[in-house]
């Protein structure tokens, strides 16, 4: 009998755990996700930085300090195996005065004790050489060459695709209501689609982590949402910062950064606003929040594009644990429960290391780990027509003419890619968007929305009226016009 693990939540953490466990003989992995796709919690709305690992004080936050550093290292191999776009661009923390210089010195020594390689404090000349768009007012900077940028939603999709290819089962639009415990052992999960029996439950439900943990009787911590808002600019927008620029950090946040996403868009944000315990889905943007982001960002770089040139604004919620550190633990009572929650920043960076930690905790339960004979470590990325040279584009079109039909002209996304995304499991417009970038450009989908609806309905055999933006309750249209044309 295989050992059945139910993972609640398909964010980057749950997906990394699924990928890790799907490596081994003897596990049957199920992932339960309440949304219509993976990665729609914190994992799609963050900065995407693979932090170098100098931020966290190991005496206060030992998990964060250790797993961030380890995760940064792990992503190097993983991004390659899973073909996830990543830029190892390095980062600069800018200091504007004496006080902030002292902060840099502190970060430097902390980074060194965390084992972060290549860290240096550099003067204005080198700052300008490294990043010519950095503010001329900066007097010094901490240069972290190992910091990177990854596409966080692609990373999540890639992890889950690899996990399912190796046998994991993904249950979308499945809400976990309660972790069920019997005789001090976890026996399964009660969901809105029925009961799933399980020998172990991994709680990776992000912002809802404390509530779900509570259903299994573990309630020694609380999680609160801390919102961060962003501006995204078109890929043509100038300036293009090559490195991630940070201000000197404050205790609650690493501050508003200016960076370039893995896809090449200028990204500015996030601020940090604590919300009430009930506001766990309050991902709205606000006028005040965006103004704050803008003010802070303007300090870091010379000549941001006009605010009106932003093509989108968005916000994400950090799951902030009251204890400060990540909560990655297993229990004697109930046994079989592993919490990996409180995954605030740097949770994205740490995800692969968190996954290994979870495996270790399960191993303590006496489980023997042996890698499956037919385990596939690699996952193939989607075709990215727009990144290919003309000759290769032509080759693709001659094999499949639907590569010659451009559906999203802002981002040059072809019909073939949209069909590929659907084949890989996309069932909503947002799923297609996050996998292909169709609708992510300057016009934000006003030209291609209808065409994507047609493709989605045709390829999945559903009625076009039933096409949704993000699953149940988010249909694009509410019916047909009267004459029914």
């Amino acid at each position: 009998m295989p050992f059945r693990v139910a993972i609640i939540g398909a964010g980057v953490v749950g997906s990394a755990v699924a990928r890790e466990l799907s490596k081994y003989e003897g596990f049957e992995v199920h992932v339960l996700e309440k949304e219509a796709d993976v990665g729609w919690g914190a994992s799609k709305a963050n900065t995407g930085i693979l932090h170098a690992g100098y931020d966290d004080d190991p005496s206060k936050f030992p998990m964060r300090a250790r797993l961030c550093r380890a995760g940064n290292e792990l992503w190097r191999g993983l991004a390659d195996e899973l073909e996830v776009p990543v830029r190892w661009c390095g980062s600069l923390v800018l200091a504007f005065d004496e006080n902030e210089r002292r902060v840099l010195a502190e970060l430097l020594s902390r980074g060194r004790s965390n084992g972060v390689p290549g860290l240096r404090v550099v003067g204005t000349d080198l700052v300008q050489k490294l990043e010519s768009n950095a503010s001329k007012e900066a007097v010094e900077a901490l240069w972290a060459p190992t910091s990177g940028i990854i596409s966080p939603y692609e990373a999540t999709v890639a992890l889950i695709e690899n996990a399912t290819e190796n046998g994991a089962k993904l249950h979308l639009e499945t809400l976990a209501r309660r972790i069920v415990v019997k005789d001090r052992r976890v026996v399964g999960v009660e969901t809105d689609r029925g009961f799933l029996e399980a020998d172990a439950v991994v709680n990776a439900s992000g912002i809802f982590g404390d509530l779900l943990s509570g259903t299994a009787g573990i309630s020694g911590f609380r999680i609160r949402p801390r919102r961060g808002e962003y501006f995204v600019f078109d890929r043509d927008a100038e300036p293009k910062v090559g490195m991630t620029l940070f201000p000197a950090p404050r205790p609650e946040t690493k501050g508003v950064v200016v960076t370039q996403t893995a896809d090449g868009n200028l990204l500015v944000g996030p601020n940090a606003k604590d919300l009430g315990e009930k506001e766990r889905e309050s991902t709205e943007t606000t006028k005040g929040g965006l103004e704050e982001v803008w003010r802070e960002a303007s300090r870091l770089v010379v000549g941001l594009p006009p605010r009106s040139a932003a093509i989108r604004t968005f916000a994400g919620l950090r799951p902030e644990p009251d204890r400060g550190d990540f909560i990655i633990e297993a229990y004697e009572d109930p046994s079989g429960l592993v919490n990996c929650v409180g995954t605030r920043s740097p949770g994205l960076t740490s995800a692969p290391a968190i996954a290994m930690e979870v495996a270790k905790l399960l191993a303590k339960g006496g489980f023997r780990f042996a890698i499956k004979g037919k385990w596939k470590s690699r996952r193939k990325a989607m075709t990215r027509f727009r990144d290919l040279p003309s000759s290769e584009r032509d080759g693709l079109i001659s094999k499949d003419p639907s590569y010659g039909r451009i559906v999203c002209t802002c981002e040059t996304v072809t019909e073939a890619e949209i069909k590929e995304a659907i084949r890989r499991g996309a069932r909503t417009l947002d799923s297609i968007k996050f996998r292909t970038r169709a609708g992510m450009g300057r016009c934000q989908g006003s030209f291609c929305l209808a065409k994507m609806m047609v493709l989605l309905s045709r390829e999945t055999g559903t009625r076009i009226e039933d096409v949704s933006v993000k699953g149940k309750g988010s249909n694009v249209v509410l019916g047909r016009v009267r004459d029914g044309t």
Partner: protein
Amino acid sequence: MRRSSAKPSLWVLAVREREADVIVVGGGPAGLAAASSCKEAGLEVLLVEREGSLGGILPQCIHTGFGILETKEDYTGPEFAEMLEKRARDLGVEILLDSYVSRLSQVGGCGASIEVLSPRGVETMRASTLIFSTGCRERNAFEIGITGDRPAGVMTAGTAQALMDLYGLLPGREVVVVGSGDVGLIMSRRFALEGAKVKAVVEITRYPGGLTRNVVQCLEDFGIPMLLSHAVLEVRGRKRVESVVVSEVDEKQGPVPGTESEIECDTLVVAAGLVPEAGLLEKAGAKIDPLTGGPFVNEFLETSLRGVFACGNVLVVNDLVDHAVEQGRLCAMSAKSLIEGTMRRPSAWKRAVPGENVRFVVPHLFSGDRDTVFYSRVRSPMRDCSLSFNEIDKEVRIRAAMPAEMVRVRIEGSLLSGVGEALTFEVRGWPKGKRG
């Protein structure tokens, strides 16, 4: 026709090339008119259109109001588009559909080469003259600073129109429309005709953006309220729009605190203006006018790239299709004279510049050697006024000038030749008692 696919080593050679006298990019009304006129003038012309059909945005504009100046008759969008298409086909214009122009570059100081993506493959096409007629795109909710949630049910007017009139789908039942330009007004009526409730048309300026006729026929006749000097600040609803927050705005169009109210609705339609789709021109190095969003052009409608011309909504957002067609024809004439070597550029161009209550003037440069048609728009509405110039003795009386209505004026070469460096376009009140 297809090459064998099993020889990847040939890929590099497979990119085919084509040449023509004129390539027209974009098969909307402006491009169709340009291509037909080129053909009539005996030029070898190739029309390249990214969609599977011609007509640009016209096929989805099922209301009447098209072609009145050109034909003296009132057509619907699809009817007018069909006429333009038929003419082009009858003349034998070579048309490439499903063909997206992905890159433009100038070659050899005049003319251009384009890269075209289509189910045929990747092609490079060169021509000594190129006419750009790629139309415009719509501004979206983010560009006009709307914050809040990002649910289903927020869409531009053009998307809503396409869903209804090309696909037979109803985007919403309780609708708030942002923007009272003609597009917003016409879409409000379109929703009302489908039995949807249009709860409000929200307009940030103090006056309606569209024609008075449309305000009456599209809103008043249907009892749709308009909120002037108001803005939509926020969208609410996690999955689908549940409401929007609107407020009054001050003279600087900033929200007035304390005036916020919430309107329940399931759909927010954004009709907040159009932006020329000039990205390819800009990337190729054409100078862009920040006032129009389109390229700088001279009286031949030639951009700062020699041999590259622009017409229709990519040049300047037109409210009348007739003007787009007229610009298309002028581009064709210019292409002909350039190819035949009869185009005379002056040693120094004179500039047409906007003055009092004028937002922009197109074309930007003129020689004074010939009669020239100029297009401009006023900044704010004015009754009983005139378009006038300090530099020349000409005055055109306008009964009611509206930002929504293009002011078109033809100025004689004899007058233009007398202009020094610049000609300033101004719209001022008509002096009381003066005849006109």
